[in-house]
């Protein structure tokens, strides 16, 4: 399966899980509002404030993931949030907390769960975020070296293809315009009239414009191989 489809599905599932996570924390914390919760040994704040904060940050992460069009940003954000949760857990271990589930007793009770049944899936979500986002980012980094990204000169749509396909001509997946798969970067040609050097982006192919040197009208064409 394509790694980008996997990444996108991961982001979708992460967004879903974080939405669930944030809502459960908020509702669970809200149900315990009349109670005094223990202080978080890492932050020193009451667990109610800590849980409100975690819930709020989860919501922000979800919104940024939904708004962002960059998979790398989404994955990096999810990795950051997952690592925060893991570091929080390690902080508890450092503070010799024997059973972290007990910090979620009241939130769990709001959903008729035992603390352990509540805490274990939450820890699973954090692990899932860290492992998947980290793995996908590394995979993306490695794979991006073997890929080329260009812009369709007709519609401006982004098209990514394997380096093996360089030189092939195919219709643009967005607009159907015939598209030649070439290396990204500017093309170079000489003016018909003054032989002056002209450099232009590939999506400007076919554009009529005055030569920057002799001001004669020229058409930007693909340079000969």
């Amino acid at each position, binding site marked *: 399966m394509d790694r*980008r489809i996997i990444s996108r599905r991961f982001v*979708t599932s992460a967004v879903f899980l974080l*939405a669930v996570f944030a809502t459960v924390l908020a509702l669970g914390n809200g149900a315990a509002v009349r109670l*005094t919760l223990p202080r978080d040994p890492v932050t020193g704040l009451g667990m109610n404030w800590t849980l409100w904060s975690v819930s709020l940050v989860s919501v922000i992460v979800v919104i940024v993931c939904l708004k962002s069009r960059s998979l790398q940003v989404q994955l990096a954000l999810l990795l950051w949030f997952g690592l925060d949760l893991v570091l929080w857990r390690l902080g508890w271990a450092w503070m010799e907390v024997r059973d972290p589930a007990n910090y979620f007793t009241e939130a769990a009770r709001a959903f008729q769960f035992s603390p352990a049944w509540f805490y274990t899936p939450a820890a699973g979500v954090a692990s899932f975020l860290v492992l998947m986002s980290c793995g996908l980012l590394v995979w993306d980094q490695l794979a991006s070296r073997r890929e080329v990204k260009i812009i369709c000169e007709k519609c401006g749509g982004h*098209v990514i293809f394997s380096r093996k396909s360089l030189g*092939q001509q195919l219709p643009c997946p967005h607009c159907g315009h015939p598209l030649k798969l070439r290396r990204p970067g500017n093309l170079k040609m000489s003016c018909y009239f003054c032989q002056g050097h002209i450099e232009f982006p590939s999506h400007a192919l076919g554009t009529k414009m005055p030569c920057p040197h002799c001001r004669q009208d020229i058409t930007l064409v693909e340079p000969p191989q």
Partner: protein
Amino acid sequence: MKQHTIPAARRNWNWTWAGGGVLLVIAWKLILVAVVALREPAELAALAELREFKQEPVPNQANNRLVFAQDTAEGIGIYYCDLASPQPQLLGEQKERGSRGRRFGMLGWSPEDKWFACAFPDDQRNEQWIQVFDGQSGKLASRLGGELGLKQLVWLSNEAFAYSTETGIRTVLRQGDGGWAHRRNYQNVAKRLDDLTALSPDVLAWRDGQRVGTLDVGVGVAREIWKATTNQLVQITRGRNERELLLNCQDAAGQWLYRLQLDGRENAPERLYEATDYIRDVRWLGQGISYAFLTNAPGGCAFAVRLPGADAVKLIPWAGGARRLTFNGSKLFFYGYEDGDAPGIWGCDAVSGEFKKHCPAGRGSAEPGVVRATAGTLTNRLGQTRFYRLLNPSRSGDSRRPVLLAQELNEWFAGFQIAARCGYLVAVVDRPFEHTWDGDLPHTWAEDVGALYDVVAKHPNADTNRVYLYACSRDSAGLSQLVSEQPALARGLICYSPAALPDPARLHGRKLLLTSGDSAGDSKRLRSFQDRAVQKGNAVTLLLQPGSGHMPGSGNIETQRARELIRFLQAPD
């Protein structure tokens, strides 16, 4: 070739998933709320809503009207009740003020039932008001500003009453215009004035620690008339206009009732009755030798009554719990409950032994579902005999159930019924009465409840892996001792206003419910304990109730505690 842009449709799909996650949780929570609401029987909710009675009910001379105190939603109210009419009338209310507020005082009925009066502290304006009501109609007749430190009130006649502060006494007389005014102020007549009583229209008596003092308000001379030397004086009481007192004393051997006659034989009290323990709420009627008190019995408790002219004490058994006994003529009034029934104010004809419920505690439409108790006897680890009560919820069949163990006086406590309704096997061992006052005798909570555990562990329905202990206030010291001695005994602890807490280092994997008022001054200690106990691997639920003191002073606070108890008991392990 592959395309790798993010189509708009896919982005919308992500929004759908995120929104779906939120809606899923909200729907799940709503379903849970609905299921809990449907599953919780109305009887359980009614139990949590029951209003506690405070202080003792005060009957008039004719025993056909009562003044009593009961929790209102936001405080404590004083009610006037004509026993012929079922609906009590609220005379006044003191809002819950935590430990900062003062409690109202009950003056009761004047001779011939002409007046009755109560003292209402007004904490907002730092004033104390004594309100005098018409004895026939229950309407407010007059109001008088009293001293802020007012403790107890007592009628001297229809036209005069007196009240005590910590160390002094003031008298109040009725004026020609129908109002009331302070007359005399006797300061520093005692170090600590308790059990103020009128021996005659001119003579007041009180307990000052181990001493009994009197004051002749005509000449203004206070004197000590008796001092406990070989035992401890717990309580004094008197009959109306009788120049004698009944002394309730205690020593290591048990409890003793003495009659102290003030005419010539002050220093030679006559011993009337003795018991090993459990002489509570002694009321002296006079009229020869006539008195009543509350004691315990295997099937609940009993009223010990010596009627005028009788040679011996008559025991009237009561299958249930009782407290705050008053004795008037041949009639007893008390707060209590009959086994299987909700509490209320009961009356008992001491001659016929017939009981009648006058004012139920519940004001709602739903009847609280009360589980019946079975009684038993056990021997604690010190070799002392104790009675215990077992509430076994019948709906649970033969299955094993969690167990709640406690030690309490045989009085109504909604928490035990709530636990039974939640499917717990509840066992309560009688607390010796000597533990309820400021005696120096050692408490036996750990020994009694430890022995109770040994008994209940043999019960076929008891799940000994899920044993919970309950203690309130000073009893939590015994609970801590038991947890320290037998750390594996209890799965959970329930402590109301705990005076002592177990060492968190000795706890692991326990469930704890701690409640207290945030005005009680122990919030910091409880929060610190909670932090340490959770860090050691225990689930601690801490309820600090705003505006409340060491003990609850309003119906809402009681209900909040009860609701948290239900939530705690029903929570999954």
